[in-house]
């Protein structure tokens, strides 16, 4: 199905070869490069201009099999093998009607029976066995299940949209990560250049021993690249040992350690903070908190109240409902225990 859908969105080009030729007018791609070969419901190839000619005046018989066709029914096939094209189309049609899912059934067996039934009908359509009866059954099913078909269709559409949203968000995130990484590389490169420049400068102007100067500058170089990296990954333990060996100054390294041991904040909430942005004005249904009213209780501002209320509405919005196999572990134990006490 997805192949046809992407074909309709023109992501997949229609199938064509260099030695295509129209069976009716015998024109060839070699001579007419823009030629489009179409097929109708009977899967006989015919070129676009022939279709114009034959079917422009209204429904007409197919030149090959004499089946009555309309112009609007012709399309460009995307598969070379037309039986594949046929099967894909039939399956797509079936999937649009028979769009129930496993969760719509009480048991796996029911679902399998349903799948079997659908596959049976598809098979009949594919191989022209009792087609009339199959068509009748499909129509009947469609009539009986209009509501559930529509519901599942909208569900499917919504999932597709969500999927698109997710992939969009993901793409943006990746892009940002990449940009950040590139920026970091750039920074590192620039710093290295500066260090190199400093080293050359020092060598040129100072009158100390050249070896000492090189050694001191190498330490700086190493340090700066390490501190840069720590932004993305945790500093390794051997940094300290390394620096101690080299004997550089520790002053600016201590900052990194403070990150790991954040200071204890007694007023900090022990719970996960929530992402809520307050507006300055709300149309509050509670008259006590309307704009302009003075509040009766001390210490409770309008903002505090509104934050509580909004946080209360967001908290637990994404709590997973209990699942059957989680129940045995958690809930039953607690609840059956209490069930014993009042009654037995």
């Amino acid at each position, binding site marked *: 199905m997805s192949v046809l859908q992407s074909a309709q969105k023109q992501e997949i080009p229609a199938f064509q070869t260099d030695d295509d030729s129209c069976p009716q007018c015998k024109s060839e791609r070699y001579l007419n490069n823009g030629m489009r070969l179409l097929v109708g419901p009977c899967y006989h190839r015919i070129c676009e201009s022939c279709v114009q000619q034959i079917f422009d005046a209204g429904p007409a018989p197919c030149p090959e099999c004499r089946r009555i066709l309309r112009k609007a029914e012709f399309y460009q096939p995307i598969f070379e093998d037309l039986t594949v094209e046929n099967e894909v189309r039939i399956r797509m049609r079936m999937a649009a009607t028979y769009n129930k899912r496993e969760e719509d059934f009480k048991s796996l067996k029911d679902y399998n029976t349903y799948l079997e039934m659908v596959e049976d009908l598809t098979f009949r359509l594919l191989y022209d066995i009792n087609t009339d009866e199959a068509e009748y059954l499909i129509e009947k099913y469609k009539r009986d299940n209009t509501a559930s078909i529509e519901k599942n269709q909208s569900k499917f559409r919504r999932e597709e949209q969500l999927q698109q949203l997710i992939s969009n968000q993901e793409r943006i995130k990746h892009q940002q990560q990449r940009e950040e990484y590139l920026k970091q590389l750039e920074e590192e490169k620039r710093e290295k250049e500066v260090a190199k420049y400093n080293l050359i400068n020092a060598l040129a102007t100072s009158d100390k021993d050249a070896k000492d100067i090189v050694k001191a500058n190498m330490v700086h170089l190493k340090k700066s690249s390490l501190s840069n990296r720590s932004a993305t990954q945790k500093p390794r333990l051997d940094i300290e040992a390394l620096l101690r060996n080299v004997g550089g100054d520790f002053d600016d390294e201590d900052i990194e350690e403070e990150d790991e041991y954040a200071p204890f904040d007694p007023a900090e909430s*022990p719970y996960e903070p929530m992402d809520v942005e307050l507006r300055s004005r709300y149309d509050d249904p509670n008259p006590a908190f309307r704009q302009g009213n003075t509040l009766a209780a001390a210490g409770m501002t309008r903002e505090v109240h509104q934050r509580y209320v909004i946080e209360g*509405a967001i908290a637990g919005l994404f709590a997973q409902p209990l699942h059957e196999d989680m129940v045995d572990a958690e809930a039953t134990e607690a609840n059956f225990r209490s069930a014993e006490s009042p009654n037995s």
Partner: protein
Amino acid sequence: MTDKPQLYEQASQYRHWRFTRESLDKLRAANNERGIERVLRGLREEAHVDDDHSMLETRVSEATNNLLTPAEELELIDYYLQMIKVYAQSYRKNGLLKPEALDNVKATAINFMKRFYLHNVVFDYPPKSIMLTCFYLATKVENAFMKIDDFVRPLQAAETKRGSKVQTKNEDILELEFVVIQSLQFELAVHHPYRAAYGLYLEMQAYINDAALLKDVFDRSHHYIDLSLFTDLVFLYQPPQIALGAFKLAAREKDLDIDTYLTQRFDARLLEMLFTVLDDIQDTVSAFKNTSQKDAQVIDRKLILCRNPEKNPSSKLYKKKAAGQGDVPYVSDSDSD
């Protein structure tokens, strides 16, 4: 950073009162089975009370012919859940219930009753009395307390008007209070979709421009949340999820696009899961039907014949046990353990 727990995961509702449809069915079926056993055992015990075995056979066969299935139990309970709604309205009209507390009291009472019958059966505790106790308890939990005399007076007035012989007494409600709390595992905090819907409404104001339409949808969602209280959704999903489901139902009716808000506001990957949840909520709420009074009466009549005499205050067995214990402060089962 992400290893911090979420606040809502600490709620008792999240930790102890979540189920799947299958586990709910299993739990109810198991309770029903055990309840039936207790009924038959109680009948036999009652025959021993005055050594009158002549009636035993007929009583047992009467009971076994009229036993309620789990589904019938649920129907009966559902009818009395609707009664909670009606009572809440009438208490509000009397001025006993503050209008702003109405929703929460009603929803909490309904929730208490649903939770109670996850661990009990109607054979032991008929829903009519449990309903009143749950309601009274809910007024206390939701900070809308009324005196027990005030609570009972309108009930008695209604009963005299109807000309019924039995009058509800204070003790009828108070005696069951501890039984109910015990079955609720002493967890009385219940979170409802109303507040979540309120928060969602505030949130959506930042994303949806048509303020008047949004307000319409918000008001309408209230109706669907009311409906959702009667379903098992409270045991399956979180209040914000139910609120959003109600919002989507209301939005469909008023022709407002909420999906755009969701896709703008949240990560698409999370939405995939949320949408299936919302679908289920919408289907369940719109497919739900309350039990009619006629059906409830039929079931209620059957229940009279298959009540557990051990818990029935008008039975001989209960009276004998009560006499043996002297003054029983409340109907408690802890002594039978």
